[in-house]
């Protein structure tokens, strides 16, 4: 365990704050100082507002002093991916298109974190419009993995995972459309949770693929993730896909829910393309659960091989529609080279979007275009039904599924130039988004060369309490999160 404040979990810091051994201003100052010291190497932030953070911290200290603490998150610095709106702060989606955009309102998750007393800290780098698996698609430059800054932190929420791993925040929020929380969590050695679709409001989240996007936490421990999830979950009438359900006290449920559980191992997730060191680490995790009395069953998700294609049809179709709003008229980049109003759309979009965003808009426009809709989009939506049924069938037999999170550990910045090779990195995570399920990546070891490995647990819809308890039982038997990168 590190003695550094910025490496402590929320649970320890909240206890110290409550015991008056620490103030939020001291904690925030430590995080700010750490950020300034490592940012030249990590570049996890697009921007941060030190004065604003310290003012929030002072307000938190005043509440605690008055006996009005709002709970475990009061005074804790939490970083937000730069696709989540915070009033008066930049909101860029790491795109030139929104380079100068300042958010006029708060996302629902932002409001909820404020209500919980959290110190909102910084705008975290990501792939442009959350499209990518490495954070290399940011218009403002790549983020370095704190374990080896010549490597990627994963993506698209790579700033969120890197900032946490480097001690530049105590927890962070990301968004996950095809693995964008879980994969960077795995590559940076932290916990990352993608909640069930509909559990967390998407209001104020810049839309990529609306039927797949979901906001979730990055944290040092499963218990910390449970605390942040409890703060951000819940029905919101401003998101019509938000689900009306009682939000349990996820943290309290952790200790109430005890195994042994039935865990399914989907055989399709251990096929070719999986790095042998990652395969071995996940096998050890399976052996651990077995030693704890859990029943391990091999299950089959027969449509797994179609997940990637289904995802890239649906996600790009939705993206091409969602990104239609960036036309240079009401907000965002406006070209000065256009000769008329229609040309203004063409030129503003050409100048504002980066290559991966353009590729996905083109692909999405194509699969929705006249004559191709049935063959691609409608067919993909039907295959999506089959993919979801595969998971629901497996859940008749088991409580959760255990898989690798990513087929490979963190790779070198610039190593994967081919879009298709990059898309293949999402093979273990995208099925979860298509099926709308909750899933968590937990640290499960290191490669010989010292790069973090993550294991993914996939849960039943709205059964986050079980999922977190299953993840925690693994975490309690291991000390992977006690290791920190040397920066």
């Amino acid at each position, binding site marked *: 365990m590190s003695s550094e404040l910025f490496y402590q979990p929320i649970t320890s810091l909240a206890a110290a704050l409550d015991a008056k051994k620490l103030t939020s201003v001291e904690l925030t100052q430590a995080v700010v100082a750490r950020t300034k010291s490592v940012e030249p190497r990590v570049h996890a932030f697009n921007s941060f507002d030190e004065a604003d953070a310290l003012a929030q911290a002072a307000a938190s200290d005043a509440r605690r002093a008055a006996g009005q603490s709002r709970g475990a998150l009061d005074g804790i610095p939490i970083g937000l991916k730069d696709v989540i709106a915070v009033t008066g702060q930049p909101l860029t989606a790491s795109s030139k298109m929104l380079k100068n955009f300042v958010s006029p309102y708060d996302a629902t998750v932002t409001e909820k974190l404020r209500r919980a007393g959290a110190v909102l800290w910084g705008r975290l780098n990501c792939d442009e419009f959350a499209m990518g698996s490495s954070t290399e698609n940011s218009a403002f430059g790549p983020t370095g993995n704190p374990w080896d800054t010549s490597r990627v932190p994963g993506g698209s929420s790579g700033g969120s995972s890197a900032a946490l791993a480097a001690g530049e925040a105590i927890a962070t929020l990301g968004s996950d459309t095809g693995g964008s929380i879980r994969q960077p969590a795995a590559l940076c050695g932290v916990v990352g949770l993608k909640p069930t679709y509909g559990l967390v409001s998407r209001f104020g989240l810049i839309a990529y693929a609306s039927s797949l996007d979901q906001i979730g936490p990055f944290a040092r421990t499963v218990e910390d993730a449970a605390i942040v999830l409890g703060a951000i979950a819940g029905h919101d009438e401003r998101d019509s896909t938000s689900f009306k359900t009682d939000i349990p006290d996820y943290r309290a449920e952790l200790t109430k829910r005890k195994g042994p559980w039935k865990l399914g191992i989907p055989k399709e997730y251990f096929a070719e393309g999986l790095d042998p060191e990652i395969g071995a680490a996940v096998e050890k995790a399976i052996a651990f659960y077995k030693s704890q009395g859990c029943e391990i069953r091999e299950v089959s998700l027969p449509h797994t091989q179609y997940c990637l294609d289904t995802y890239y049809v649906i996600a790009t179709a939705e993206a091409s529609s969602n990104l239609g709003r960036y036309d240079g008229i009401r907000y965002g980049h406006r070209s000065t080279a256009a000769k*008329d109003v229609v040309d203004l759309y063409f030129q503003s979009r050409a100048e504002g979007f980066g290559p991966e965003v353009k590729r996905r808009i083109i692909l999405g426009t194509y699969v929705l275009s006249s004559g191709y809709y049935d*063959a691609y989009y409608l067919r993909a*939506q039907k295959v999506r039904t089959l993919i979801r049924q595969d998971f629901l069938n497996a859940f008749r037999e088991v409580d959760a599924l255990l898989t690798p999170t990513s087929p490979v550990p963190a790779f070198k910045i610039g190593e994967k130039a081919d879009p298709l090779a990059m898309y293949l990195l999402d093979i273990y995570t995208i099925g979860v988004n298509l099926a709308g399920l909750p899933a968590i990546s937990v640290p499960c070891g290191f490669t010989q060369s010292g790069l973090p490995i993550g294991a993914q647990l996939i849960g039943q819809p709205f059964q986050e309490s079980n999922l977190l308890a299953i993840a925690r039982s693994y975490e309690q038997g291991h000390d992977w999160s006690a290791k920190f990168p040397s920066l």
Partner: protein
Amino acid sequence: MSSAPQLDINHIAKLARLALTPEEKEKFSQQLGDVLHHIEQLAKVDVTGVEPTAHASPVFNVWQPDVARPGLAVVDALRNAPAQRENMVVVPKVVE
């Protein structure tokens, strides 16, 4: 689905209101050709009688009372406008 997908990049870019350079057109055509070739395997799935899934949330037909509520103030709504005048967004001339 045909076995050899053809993406007419000029037509699609026009639909997407996206100006592409000749280099982008060539590169994207080749890269997306590879991706489309991969996507072709969806044609192998038997989807007879399968209903499409638009999203995985068990929520349908969400209604809200049609009541006016306070929204963004004009100054906030126009805060990010590339050009504005007299509480309006300025755009190039659309009618001759």
